[in-house]
């Protein structure tokens, strides 16, 4: 049984949506306490711009440096014991949820464009018109696949940079998988481009 590349593209796009949902769930629920201490980078230390007030008669009492360090360590230990997530450990939760929502929104948005073009193509009558509609639909699906693969690849790299021990070797598999998908869609788009040029030549556009 022969399967077309278009069907494969549709399957990959659906797979990418599922993968995005999985990544969202995994990232927001991944506990930072399960990470090994060695693999953790040191959390960012906030340093005050100036510790000596210029003119302030009601300045707070001076706290010795050792006491301050202990306080910071206590806070840090507490946050780990509470069992917060990786995102909160890196203080990234402020923008990470928005990034995740944007990522899913973008992928679903471009997929809906492809579905709409599929619907439009189903209304085509006649052999030649149907074939040309299919050509346009294929181009749309390949572009959608390329966009979704790029988004997931970027996010995977982001996770990789954040902590390369996250998900173990799965992150490498994901990187390789998404990169190969990216190459596949680029190849298909180039092929479509070649066909389009040939078609324009037949139809005397050039």
């Amino acid at each position, binding site marked *: 049984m*022969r399967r*077309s*590349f*278009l069907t494969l593209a549709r399957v990959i796009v659906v797979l990418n949506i599922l993968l995005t949902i999985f990544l969202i769930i995994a990232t927001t629920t991944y506990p930072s306490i399960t990470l090994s201490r060695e693999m953790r980078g040191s959390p960012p230390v906030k340093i005050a711009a100036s510790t000596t007030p210029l003119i302030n008669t009601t300045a707070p009492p001076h706290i010795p440096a050792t006491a301050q360090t202990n306080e910071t360590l206590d806070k840090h230990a507490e946050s780990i014991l509470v069992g917060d997530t990786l995102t909160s450990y890196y203080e990234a939760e402020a923008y990470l949820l928005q990034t995740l929502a944007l990522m899913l929104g973008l992928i679903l948005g471009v997929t809906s464009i492809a579905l709409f073009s599929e619907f439009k193509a189903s209304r*085509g*009558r*006649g*052999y*030649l*018109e149907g*074939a*040309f*509609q*299919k*050509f*346009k639909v*294929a181009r749309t699906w390949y572009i959608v696949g390329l966009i979704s693969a790029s988004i997931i690849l970027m996010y995977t790299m982001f996770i990789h940079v954040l902590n390369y021990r996250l998900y173990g070797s799965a992150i490498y598999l994901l990187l390789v998988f998404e990169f190969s998908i990216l190459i596949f869609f680029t190849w298909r788009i180039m092929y*479509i481009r070649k*066909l389009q040029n*040939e*078609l*324009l030549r*037949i*139809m*005397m*556009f050039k």
Partner: protein
Amino acid sequence: MRERLDLVVIARMIEILYVEGAMKKTQLQMASRLNYKTFTRYLNWLTERGLIDVDSEDGYVKLTRSGLETYQTLVAWTRRYLEKI
């Protein structure tokens, strides 16, 4: 500026003329599902390329020999390439 034309619409018009044969402009416009302004633009383009011929006396539109050949080439091309797209 170069005109932007939809290949699907051109294919539709040529196919209608191939299947139905010569027909009046209005009939072709209705079958092409285009408004008058757009239809005229496509009709002029096809006439300029010598793919269709508009009879100045009775206003009938028909495919020329070149148009017929183009249609057959396109069908053969789509059978060859678009099946495995």
